[in-house]
């Protein structure tokens, strides 16, 4: 049999162009449906796992899908905001431990997630380098952010302006990286975490500037009215928070009315979850959602599309298989003289009969190996790609 395999191998090598086309065609027939199936399944599993680990989400009324995608996957647009005061109300209920989320801004394409330290415990995120954020203007970055932006503890990241031409808009804030998270193989790897107040400073709700009472700031004083000092346009506003100027940062107004995009209420037990669900079920301004149910709806749509694509691929596969079969049958006909020579020399009927089968087997083996390699690569690269497509 090894002799026949050798002959088959030599034949395929001699006709390498034809062989390459055959292998490619069969590879695609195997890979496309299998690869798609695996990628969709893997992506669905990854996405539902994150949704499963977040039992509830509270946000303003609007699209539940937008709320889930923004809060869990840090993608899609910002949902309508809710007041920070809701956080205290939830905490006062004694049913849940609420975690604030403000996901609106970006830095070099990576989402900036305003939250508190409870988020890291909730997601089981651990530091691989540096320390946790403790003050204003400090950031902890996910592992992929650290790798892609080549930043670590001691480096800085700058928030991206929302609009270059909007003078009243959000100005860039330079934030100091104090820690890098260990890989979690989730969306958290791609995020920059800051304290919720830092996120509000990026938005301009809090700010720091020169102390107008000090003599060196005299040029920035427009007028003095007793205790009240009015600044002019020469007032220097800080665009980074340092130990020297951190005391000057302050918020005007009540923090309770500052915005959040969502609250992650972590119920103390199943009963608490049911109670909190019931409490917000018919709230006129807020909605409470179970992320798993929302994701199931989204993935049902993805699976429906996938079914149609699979049917189309199977039909194309059948057509390609028929063409490949035709190629082999025509080849068999063209090689009748060669088979006849082997037969007259005394070649065994089994050896001659299995020669083309060996060629088919080698083509199938090469195609299967190539398809497996492509599938592996797709699982590594395609999963995140599909997830990005689904969540955008």
């Amino acid at each position, binding site marked *: 049999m*090894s*002799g*026949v395999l*050798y*002959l088959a191998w*030599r*034949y395929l*090598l*001699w*006709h390498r162009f034809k062989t390459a086309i055959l292998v490619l065609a069969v590879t695609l027939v195997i890979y496309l449906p299998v690869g798609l199936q695996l990628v969709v399944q893997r992506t669905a599993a990854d996405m539902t796992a994150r949704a499963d680990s977040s039992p509830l989400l509270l946000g303003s009324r609007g699209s539940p899908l937008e709320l889930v995608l923004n809060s869990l996957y840090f993608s899609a647009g910002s949902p309508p905001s809710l007041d920070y005061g809701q956080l205290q109300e939830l905490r006062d209920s004694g049913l849940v431990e609420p975690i604030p989320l403000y996901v609106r801004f970006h830095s070099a394409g990576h989402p900036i997630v305003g939250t508190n330290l409870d988020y890291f415990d909730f997601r089981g995120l651990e530091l691989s380098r540096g320390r946790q954020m403790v003050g204003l203007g400090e950031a902890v970055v996910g592992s992929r952010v650290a790798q892609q932006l080549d930043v670590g503890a001691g480096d800085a990241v700058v928030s991206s302006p929302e609009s270059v031409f909007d003078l009243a808009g959000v100005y860039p804030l330079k934030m100091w990286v104090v820690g890098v998270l260990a890989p979690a193989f989730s969306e958290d790897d791609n995020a920059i975490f800051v304290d919720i107040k830092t996120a509000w400073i990026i938005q301009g709700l809090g700010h720091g500037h020169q102390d107008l009472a000090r003599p060196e700031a005299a040029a920035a004083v427009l007028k003095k009215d007793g205790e009240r000092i009015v600044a002019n346009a020469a007032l220097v506003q800080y665009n980074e928070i340092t130990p020297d100027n951190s005391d000057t940062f302050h918020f005007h107004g009540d923090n309770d009315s500052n915005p959040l995009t969502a609250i992650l209420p972590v119920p103390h037990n199943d009963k608490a979850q049911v109670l909190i669900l019931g409490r917000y079920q018919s709230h006129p301004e807020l909605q409470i959602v179970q992320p798993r149910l929302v994701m199931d709806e989204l993935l049902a749509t993805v699976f429906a599309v996938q079914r149609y694509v699979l049917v189309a691929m199977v039909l194309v596969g059948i057509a390609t298989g028929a063409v490949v079969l035709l190629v082999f049958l025509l080849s068999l006909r063209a090689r009748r*003289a*060669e088979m006849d*020579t*082997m*037969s*007259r*020399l*005394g*070649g*065994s*009927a*089994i*050896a*001659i009969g299995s020669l083309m089968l060996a060629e088919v087997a080698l083509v199938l083996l090469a195609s299967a190996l190539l398809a497996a390699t492509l599938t592996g690569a797709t699982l590594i690269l395609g999963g995140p790609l599909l997830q990005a497509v689904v969540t955008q």
Partner: protein
Amino acid sequence: MIEITDLLFKYSGSDFALQVKRLVIDSAEAVAVVGPSGSGKTTLLNLLAGVLLPDEGQVRVGTQQVSTLHDAARRDFRIKQLGMVFQNFELLEYLSVLDNILLPLRIGAGLKVNKAARVRARDLAGHVGIADKLQRYPGQLSQGERQRVAVSRALLLQPSLILADEPTGNLDPSNKTLVLDLLLDYARTHAATLVTVTHDRELLQRFDRVVDFSELNQWQGVT
């Protein structure tokens, strides 16, 4: 020894038939078979090789009743005891010269290529003057070189009977002589029987005996 007795062979759907009352070829005899085209010379070689089976009569080669063997045994007989040389060489274009010579070992039942076989293939190639072309492919060789590869392939398993179907038909005079010398030389040194179909009258004197096929075939048409 080859012995044909009361042989009758007909192609289905054709008026042609081969009828041989008796033909005996001794061991180690070199026989040339001559006759007009279409007279059945190649058919006779195929009957001797067991490629075709007679409708009547017997074909015996050595101790083997070739005409009564089943298919696998006839194939085994061909590959182990026969060396076949064809007018059109019938080499495989996708195999190197060395692999073409070794082909019988790759397709024969129970045979395999080993070190000794490779050494023998190289020796044969050296003997026929193509030792430096072992890694080339048939398309890169001249007609004479291709027939020398085919002769090496036929002699690889040291057959006791060589059947050559117009082996010099496509060759120039110098290659004709060379190829015939190789076949005759092998037959004499290995006491092998050589049956060669040829149209070339100049070569006939080199054989021990000449069989005229127009006299041998006694078929008189449909009776």
